[in-house]
């Protein structure tokens, strides 16, 4: 693992983008890695594009600037997932995880200049809707991220979910996460 891993989340207000970033960071803490998560906020309300960031390191994290060259990019919003802009600054060996049934040609084309970069896709929306609520999307994509990137284990993510949710909401989030983990595919 590199000394400092930087992650950028893309999504829309109301999708739990900031929460997803926080859950990832909290799960990393459980694995005895330092982490930092923070949102990029504007005056936007529900529906507007939102970005959030996570830094993960084996050492205490100093830098507080925004993330410019992420190793990992995660697109929670299916609409944003197909746009090439989400790839801005991606590390040459970076990993992209998108919420989509498949990888779009545009993305594949854009990534062709980075042969060592990897693109993963998971139908997080489909998984969430199958469980009855689109809000389970980000758990599904976090599960996919665990599998695709290996930066965190599914178990740690599950532990964090257990501190946050209860009852059927927890159960469905756990299911979504597992399904995301199982169903993620590489383009």
């Amino acid at each position, binding site marked *: 693992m590199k000394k400092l891993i930087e992650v950028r989340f893309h999504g829309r207000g109301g999708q739990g983008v900031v929460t997803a970033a926080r859950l990832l960071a909290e799960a990393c803490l459980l694995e005895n890695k330092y982490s930092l998560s923070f949102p990029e906020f504007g005056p936007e309300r529900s529906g507007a594009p939102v970005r959030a960031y996570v830094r993960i390191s084996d050492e205490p994290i*100093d830098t507080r600037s925004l993330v410019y060259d992420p190793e990992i990019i995660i697109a929670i919003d299916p609409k944003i997932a197909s746009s090439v802009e989400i790839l801005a600054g991606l590390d040459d060996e970076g990993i992209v995880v998108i919420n989509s049934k498949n990888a779009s040609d545009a993305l594949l084309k854009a990534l062709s200049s980075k042969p060592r970069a990897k693109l993963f896709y998971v139908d997080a929306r489909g998984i969430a809707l199958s469980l009855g609520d689109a809000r389970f999307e980000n758990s599904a994509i976090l599960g996919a991220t665990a599998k695709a990137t290996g930066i965190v284990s599914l178990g740690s993510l599950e532990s964090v979910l257990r501190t946050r949710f209860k009852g059927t909401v927890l159960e469905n989030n756990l299911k979504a996460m597992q399904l995301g983990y199982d169903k993620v595919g590489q383009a």
Partner: protein
Amino acid sequence: MSLLQPKTLKPMSTSEAIAYAVKQANVDVIAAYPITPQTIIVERLSEYVNNGELDAEYVAVESEHSAMSACVAASLTGARVFTSTASQGLALMHEVLYVASGLRCPIVMAIANRALSAPINIHCDHSDVMGSRDAGWVHIFVENAQQAYDRIFQAFRLAEDNDILLPVGVNLDGFFLSHAVEGVATISDSEAALFLPPRKAKYYIDSSMPMTFGAFALPDWYFEIKYQVVEAMEKVPKKLAEVEEAYYKMTGRMYGHVGAYRTEDADVCLICAGSAAATAKFSVARMREKGIKAGLLSIRLFRPFPVESILPHVKDAKALIVMDRAMSPGAPSAPIGQDIKTMLYDAGLNIPVANFVYGLGGRDISAAEFESITTKVIEDLKAGRPIERGVKYWGVRI
């Protein structure tokens, strides 16, 4: 400083860490008005109070002016008092800030530093606190959630010391810190109670000793009464060091008046405050890997300005780069630049100072930018070119 295992840390935003510390500090009165980006702090505190986790009165005032007014009055009544604000809120409090220090109220206030209108902007810069820097408050800047958490306890103990009795502002960068989540090492409630027992005010509003607070002082007395703030301020650096020592014994964590990193042999020393100091540290580490002899001095205690703590770290540098996240339009230097240059003049040092205003209204500054600023100054030094003096505005499109 001992490093804790990440898995032992609690994930908290800086705002949550502050609220948690305030709860553990067992405050009596919180009077606050919500304003972005400090809102999370008062929301958490309201939850603590309404859930019965903190036995305090939460006064949901109708403005920041009333927030600070109620805080001052509660503090004079002998209560341990906390509030929090940002930006316009601090500006609206402005006149009451002077009352808080003038009446020697040991209030602790978290300030989630944010730009001032106009144009309206909710993001980070230090314009708010810089506009209030002469109000007689102790001001501390933090660089992460851990410092914020720890400083709350230290701030109360410092403020409530009978030799000090000054209000303390704990400054955290809006969003960059207020909304950033990281692992924080916490102390237990019993440790908190031991470090910070209930406030014992010597003088307070009570019929058992009917005193007059806030009398009208004419020219024959005003100056002497106001001078008390200066005397108390002068005692702060030593007292804070004592408070930190006690806190260190308990936690193993200590921050000092300044944070110095690789200053001992630095040709050029960066000076800044807040979250950017953390980014600058990262940048200096990278520069050192490349053989660039840069250093960093972060201002942690800003008022009183800790001249004695700063000088040893910068006196041998060939140039200083002072990074200010606030403007002082029309002034020969930006706020921290003014203090640094005054300090150098008084010490008889003629070290060139490059003063940059950066990051207004939340504009980010990256490690790469710190590197490019520093590299330019080092190149100028090597080439024998004079360091450009006066204030420059980093990254502004003109």
